[in-house]
């Protein structure tokens, strides 16, 4: 009888023990993979959202950094304003290649004029913009016309209907790639369209869209090649009073800290679960092997070496670990993928499902870890039983 066949026969012979270990591995492997996918998904979403904005520095009115981060990250509607002149002042600072103004607006809540409830609207200036405009040129070959918008990945036009904003019909031209952030549920339009919506809103909407004259919400800054980020940021803060220059590495810092502590907590729970699983599998194996001493003694008396017995027991453990992981990991992946929106809203984290390559790597690592964990847990009881003298084992 081969080692593998002996191991498989033993697995089917002691169904209860096999089920316990299988389920234990299934739960731990599935849970660990879910946590890993969420952690990696949160990190990649944050990176992608920062990259999508593409600015080295974002200049906002002092004290509105959190509101700006909430709008750009979670799509929370916000109204922050600063004089438009500030953009010109920022653009004149040495080291600044371009400064592009943006306006943060939102649709009304529960109003009949609007097809969407409190959606974050971002208006940009096509002449200076370096975030949306280049993407549009490369994707549809032109910029946006009056009344046209670009939506995040979740924005869609209902079948046979139009998208109304403050009673104004806008045309959805294209959708951006998913980022897992609030940008996925936001709309982007030009300054001209925003002013047109504001003009129309006074006659068609329940509440008008008010844009203060000569005001913008933020200025996106791209540095000249070779310019020092810290120096330019300091120069902006010194030269323009009443504003904060948020550097790209510090962007979403408070969110990073908040999410970081949450994810560290979850990872700690995962580590504890892993340790508990090792202990549980070790105990189940220990009890099962104690009951099988006669059987193992008989095997030894029939000529099986200590090494063969040890290897067959470890193969048994490894096979159970492999089976549990083979079921647990795909189930966890499927569940995480399907419930990603629910996870994002309940945990209040950004989340972007990892790429196929990352998933494959995680799958393989998960399988190896599961097999290694169960084999490790079973090693001590298996080693102890394999060392027993056949006569002693059968007599006990």
């Amino acid at each position, binding site marked *: 009888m081969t080692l593998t066949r002996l191991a498989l026969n033993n697995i089917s012979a002691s169904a209860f023990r096999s*089920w316990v270990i299988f389920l234990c591995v299934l739960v731990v492997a599935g849970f660990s993979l879910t946590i890993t996918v969420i952690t990696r998904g949160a990190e990649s979403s944050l990176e992608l959202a920062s990259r999508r904005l593409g600015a080295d520095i974002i200049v906002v009115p002092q004290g509105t950094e959190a509101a700006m981060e909430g709008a750009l990250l979670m799509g929370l509607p916000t109204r922050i304003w600063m004089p438009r002149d500030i953009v010109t002042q920022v653009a004149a600072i040495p080291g600044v290649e371009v400064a592009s103004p943006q306006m943060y607006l939102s649709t009304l809540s529960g109003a009949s004029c609007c097809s969407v409830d409190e959606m974050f609207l971002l208006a940009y200036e096509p002449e200076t913009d370096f975030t949306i405009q280049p993407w549009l040129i490369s994707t549809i070959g032109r910029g946006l016309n009056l009344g046209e918008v670009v939506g995040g990945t979740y924005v*869609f036009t209902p079948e046979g209907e139009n998208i109304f904003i403050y009673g104004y019909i806008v045309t959805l031209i294209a959708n951006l790639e998913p980022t897992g952030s609030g940008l996925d549920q936001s709309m982007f339009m030009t300054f001209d369209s925003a002013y047109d919506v504001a003009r129309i809103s006074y006659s068609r909407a329940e509440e008008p869209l008010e844009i203060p004259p000569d005001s913008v919400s933020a200025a996106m800054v791209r540095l000249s090649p070779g310019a020092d980020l810290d120096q330019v940021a300091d120069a902006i803060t010194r030269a323009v009073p009443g504003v904060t220059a948020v550097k790209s590495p510090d962007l979403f810092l408070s969110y990073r800290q908040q999410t970081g502590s949450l994810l560290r907590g979850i990872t700690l729970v995962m580590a504890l679960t892993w340790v508990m699983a090792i202990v549980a599998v070790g105990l189940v194996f220990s009890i099962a092997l104690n009951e099988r001493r006669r059987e193992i003694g008989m095997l030894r008396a029939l000529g099986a070496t200590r090494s063969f017995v040890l290897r067959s027991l470890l193969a048994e453990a490894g096979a159970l670990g492999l089976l549990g992981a083979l079921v647990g990991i795909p*189930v966890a992946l*499927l*569940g995480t993928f*399907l*419930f990603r*929106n*629910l996870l994002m809203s309940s945990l209040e984290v950004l989340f972007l499902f990892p790429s196929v390559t990352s998933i494959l790597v995680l799958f393989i690592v998960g399988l190896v870890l599961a097999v290694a964990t169960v084999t490790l847990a079973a090693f001590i009881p298996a080693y102890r039983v394999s060392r027993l003298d056949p006569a002693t084992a059968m007599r006990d």
Partner: protein
Amino acid sequence: MRIAIAALIVVLAIGIGVLPQFTDCQSQGRQLTLENGRQIPMKCHWTGQAELALAVPLLAVGAMMTGTRRRETNRILAAMGVILGVFVMLLPTSLIGVCGSAEMICNSTMKPALLFMGALVIAASLVGLVRSERANYDLP
């Protein structure tokens, strides 16, 4: 193994029947208002009702699996499980669907839960089908 598959299908059938009743938009007090002022349920509600109609035969399939050891019967029950599982997944996606907005509970909870449970029903039934195909005698 046969009992484990049957028990899983029974649990999933109960979930498929019960969960949509609490996670459709109607259960959250949201309805469509027509121009004449009349309120009608959104389409996720009808998906929930149709899932209830699928859950009952699925429950019967699971219950019968626990009681029979005959290979042929198990094979037919497993095949039925696969077909019902496919329909559990088709109802919220292409046959009826759910509401459009990604933020609605039917879209964030009901649809993924039904797809997840449907996939598990198909996987469990396929395992049952393969086992009954490979067995040369009635199942233990």
